[in-house]
């Protein structure tokens, strides 16, 4: 396929660096660094103790090497664990935010200034280790919805944070979750009170800017009984020759009859076509359907990162609870992704749906890894899994590892899988009808991803379609 390989050359559009004076803690990790981070965030004693406990656990753990990805050793002492743009310590209004930061987010398509705000979407903008602005906080407060940086929530809503932090992803869950628990800096905290349907889409935009740093954000979302919230995260980073570590933890808790819809558009810098640079995206995301009839739905569109290692999952504890996972993962150039989900069925009549679409182009390697576990008490549980892979060109790879563990004979499991290849004949067919080669690829890929895109909030479905077009632009000629 001569033309197909020729094109995998689309420059990353968000690779600029913001020239801003930053305060960066010297590289290295030890208890003093953790104390320093905790002090900078003005945290109470219990939080510091929690971090130190996680750190001591982490020291005893080792980096997981079971994922189907390859990378050199990470020197955890060479990373700086805290970087923040220098500004006044406490911001009362957006007027006090450095204009460079506002411009940065504007350039990324995330306007945070009052007059330019996205309608219907509240945004928490996180730059390196700190949240620089959270829009619509006051409006949301009228409904009792708390939406703020987690560092602020630790100070202002300690009871809620203490009650739920680490209950879905324990500090010793895995190597990267333990590391995150020790050093996490910012991220978002959301609490939706009983019976409230959150009136806005909530979203957090994560931007890595400083070099030789990692980003370790922590997000905690609690949907109280009968509430509903839709949350979206986006992310990007400058183009750098070095690999940067991003190890986040996201915890969701849905109580009785509550619903959380969590969407991700992940566009971290993927590295260049030779595989130099790019983000290591090692993330633990898990939701707990703690209450009866609760529902958690994960939708992810993953186009960035040099290496992705993430399995957003659901613990279906409440009877009749529902877990969903819809994923599009794209690997181009030399990107590697090992991603999928875990659905743990505990409650009766729990249901889960998994729809995974992997697209590999260039020399990309795409792995779906999923676990469906039906526990003894999960009478009448059901799972439907569908894993589709698409290959563009002949130097990329697609792999599928579905794990199924059923301990209750009433369970009903369905699994479908397919692999297809965009070939010259398919492209030629569309071109013969008058479509350009780019439009042809875009149409084929969008059709392939349709079942996932329709799950995204309207405002972001268009963005996802566009992003996919950019990521694959030139994959086929």
């Amino acid at each position, binding site marked *: 396929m001569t*033309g197909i390989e020729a094109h995998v050359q689309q420059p990353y559009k968000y690779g600029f660096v913001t020239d801003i004076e930053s305060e960066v803690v010297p590289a290295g990790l030890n208890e003093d660094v953790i104390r320093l981070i905790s002090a900078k965030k003005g945290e109470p004693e219990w939080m510091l103790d929690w971090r130190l406990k996680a750190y001591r656990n982490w020291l005893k753990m080792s980096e997981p090497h079971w994922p189907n990805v390859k990378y050199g050793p990470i020197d955890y002492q060479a990373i700086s664990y805290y970087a923040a743009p220098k500004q006044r310590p406490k911001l009362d209004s957006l007027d006090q935010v450095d204009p460079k930061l506002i411009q940065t987010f504007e350039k990324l398509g995330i306007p945070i200034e009052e007059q330019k705000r996205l309608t219907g979407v509240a945004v928490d903008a996180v730059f390196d280790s700190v949240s620089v602005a959270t829009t619509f906080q006051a409006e949301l407060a009228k409904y009792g919805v708390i939406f703020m940086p987690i560092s602020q929530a630790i100070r202002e809503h300690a009871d809620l944070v203490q009650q739920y932090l680490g209950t879905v992803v324990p500090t010793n869950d895995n190597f990267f979750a333990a590391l995150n628990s020790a050093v996490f800096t910012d991220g978002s905290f959301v609490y939706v009170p009983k019976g409230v349907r959150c009136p806005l889409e909530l979203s957090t935009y994560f931007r890595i800017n400083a070099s030789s740093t990692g980003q370790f954000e922590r997000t905690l979302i609690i949907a109280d009984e009968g509430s509903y919230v839709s949350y979206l995260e986006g992310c990007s980073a400058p183009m750098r020759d070095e690999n940067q570590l991003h190890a986040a933890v996201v915890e969701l808790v849905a109580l009785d009859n509550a619903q959380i819809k969590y969407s991700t558009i992940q566009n971290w810098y993927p590295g260049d076509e030779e595989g130099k640079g790019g983000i290591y995206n090692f993330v633990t995301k898990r939701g707990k359907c703690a209450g009866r009839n609760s529902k958690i739905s994960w939708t992810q569109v993953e186009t960035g990162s040099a290496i992705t290692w993430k399995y957003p999952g659901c613990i279906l504890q409440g009877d009749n609870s529902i877990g969903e996972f819809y994923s599009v993962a794209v690997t181009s150039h030399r990107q590697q992704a090992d991603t999928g989900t875990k659905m743990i069925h505990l409650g009766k009549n729990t249901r889960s749906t998994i729809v995974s679409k992997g697209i590999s182009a260039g020399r990309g390697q795409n792995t779906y890894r999923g676990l469906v576990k039906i526990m003894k008490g999960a009478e009448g549980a059901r799972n439907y899994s569908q894993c589709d892979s698409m290959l563009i060109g002949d130097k990329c790879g697609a792999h599928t590892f579905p794990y199924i563990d059923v301990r209750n004979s009433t369970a009903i499991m369905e699994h479908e899988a397919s692999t297809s290849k965009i070939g010259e004949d398919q492209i030629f067919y569309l071109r013969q009808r008058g479509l350009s080669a780019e439009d042809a690829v875009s149409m084929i890929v969008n059709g392939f991803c349709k079942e996932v895109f329709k799950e995204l909030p309207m405002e972001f479905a268009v963005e996802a379609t566009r992003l996919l077009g950019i990521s694959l632009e030139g994959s086929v000629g």
Partner: protein
Amino acid sequence: MAKDRALLEVKGLRVAVAGNEILKGVDLTIRDGEVHAIMGPNGSGKSTLAQVLAGHPAYEVLGGSATYDGKDLLDLDPEERAREGVFLAFQYPVEIRGITNSYFLRSALNAIRRTKGEPELDPLDFLQVLERKLKTIGWDDAMMNRPVNEGFSGGEKKRNEILQLAVLEPRLAILDETDSGLDIDALKTVAQAVNQLRGPNRSFLIVTHYQRLLNYIKPDVVHVLADGRIVKTGGPELALELEAKGYDWLRDGAMVS
């Protein structure tokens, strides 16, 4: 005098696939409104001719020329040819998941309309155009909201090609073995639609192995392709002669000449 102008003029066309020369010097002239049939045994190069005229990248032109409407056809990208009015009804139409026939067809039509400087059609306008076309060929819209060719039977796929032809209104329609895999009823349905689409501003190049399609679509000219060359050209009666005698007598003739 439109009838006398050559819409397509192919001269000495030589084409290779994966290094094997398949077409060894094809000459062919099609005027506006004419229906030409290309017949020939398997492996004679019929489908290669259809594919190379449409611009499939796997076919390498070794020599010769193809002029379409005064332009060097071989110099145009496949999509440019399509927008200029060259349409290929595929022998093996591909499937496109998740994209409805109606969306696909509207995108294609709009790409062609943009080239002509005509305004694009929104879904409602398109629906009207579509309904008019369906009426012309006497079909219903049952296929329109299904994903392109996905789960279609062989006959449905071929019908879908003809429906696209109807909507995109090409000046030169190339039908590559559209009759293969069709039962007699489906064959008649397709042939009737094609007859409805004939007109002074639309020429056809019908590639077929068997004469039976030509019972329903009467060609103006019949060519016989053997071993990469057109070895005989005649009127509709030539097709009947082939049906009676097979291809061998021509192949021998080709070797003698």
